[in-house]
């Protein structure tokens, strides 16, 4: 009649884990917005679109507390905020029951200089959406659609199907409301990048960063873009270490185990080999 945790489909785990996170958030008075994936669903994405994890945007002041609670509840960190991406915005965590989740401490492309303000903007218009028969906090429909487009700005031009779907299916009024919201949330650069119009922003702060992430450019352009937007010598040196030292989180995922010192050393040295090969 019933069984426990055998062959539970991925989608079931994901739907139920939204409820899990909302329950944790509510019990601990942590402000969390469920973003992307199945929680956005059919009012934002094309039918049948699959998802592989849960994404949460957390009020910046609540991030550390949430992560600590999750670690105590059986989650482990796969990538840290500092090593997850060039935006250093999300940490990927894993639980044997629930699977993968990305904890966002801010959303790249929205209100860069003030993630607290950006979260509050989204939070103030949030809706409660039922998922797995549990009410979860998620951005308004307009904000959800904007987040999807802004997120697509981080993809290469041939991988922006979600934005194209919205362009093809929304009315002009609906599209205008998203454009308007992109200005209110100071997200024009990411928004225009997703639409292939990044050159409208040439010379602006973060232009090079979005150029580097959305187009095929040499690695040094990305490094320069990151350095350009990093204030202070100490922070720049820290960034250089991150760029040139081996990302042990990513290496661990690649190897399937925590890398040994010799594996880290081998990876570090292999970069020089690659460089010599290129020069020869």
């Amino acid at each position, binding site marked *: *009649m*019933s*069984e426990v945790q055998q062959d539970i*489909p991925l989608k079931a785990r994901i*739907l139920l884990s939204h409820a899990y996170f909302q329950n944790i958030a509510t019990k601990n008075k942590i402000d969390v917005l469920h973003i992307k994936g199945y929680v956005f669903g059919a009012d934002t994405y094309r039918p049948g679109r699959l998802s592989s994890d849960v994404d949460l945007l957390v009020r910046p002041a609540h991030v550390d507390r949430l992560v600590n609670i999750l670690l105590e509840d059986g989650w482990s960190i796969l990538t840290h905020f500092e090593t997850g991406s060039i935006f250093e915005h999300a940490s990927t965590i894993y639980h044997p*029951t629930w699977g993968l989740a990305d904890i966002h401490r801010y959303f790249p492309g929205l209100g860069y200089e003030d993630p607290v303000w950006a979260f509050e903007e989204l939070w103030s218009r949030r809706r409660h959406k039922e998922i797995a028969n549990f009410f979860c906090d998620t951005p308004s429909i307009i904000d959800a659609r904007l987040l999807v487009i802004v997120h697509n700005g981080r993809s290469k031009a041939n991988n922006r199907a979600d934005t194209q779907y919205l362009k093809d299916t929304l009315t002009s009024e609906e599209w205008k409301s998203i454009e308007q919201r992109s200005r209110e949330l100071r997200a024009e650069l990411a928004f225009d990048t997703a639409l292939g119009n990044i050159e409208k922003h040439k010379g602006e702060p973060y232009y090079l960063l979005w150029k580097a992430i959305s187009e095929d450019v040499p690695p040094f352009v990305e490094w320069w873009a990151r350095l350009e937007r990093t204030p202070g010598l100490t922070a720049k040196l820290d960034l250089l270490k991150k760029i040139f030292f081996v990302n042990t989180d990513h290496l661990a995922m690649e190897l399937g185990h925590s890398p040994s010192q010799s594996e880290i050393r081998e990876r570090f040295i292999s970069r020089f080999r690659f460089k010599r090969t290129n020069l020869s």
Partner: protein
Amino acid sequence: MSNLLQRANETAFAFGEDIENSPDGTIYVADLRTSEIFCFSGSAAVIWCLLDDAITKEKLIELVAETFGEEPSTIRAETLNFVDGLISQNLLERS
């Protein structure tokens, strides 16, 4: 203590119909406190659905019998056995 039973607050559930490659009539139930997921099918899934509102055991037996076109006495033992299992797993609580 009340005789009314209801689903525990810290549970969630998803229907197999919403999930690709999942048999129809299946319900995945999660205990959000313990991170356990249970898979209910057949009469178990029906009983879980009938627990939408707080209900007594006797009323539940009556509804299960009506759903399956059986006499209450025929399904009584199996229903009570399942409900007691839910209570012992803390998936049901008294309202």
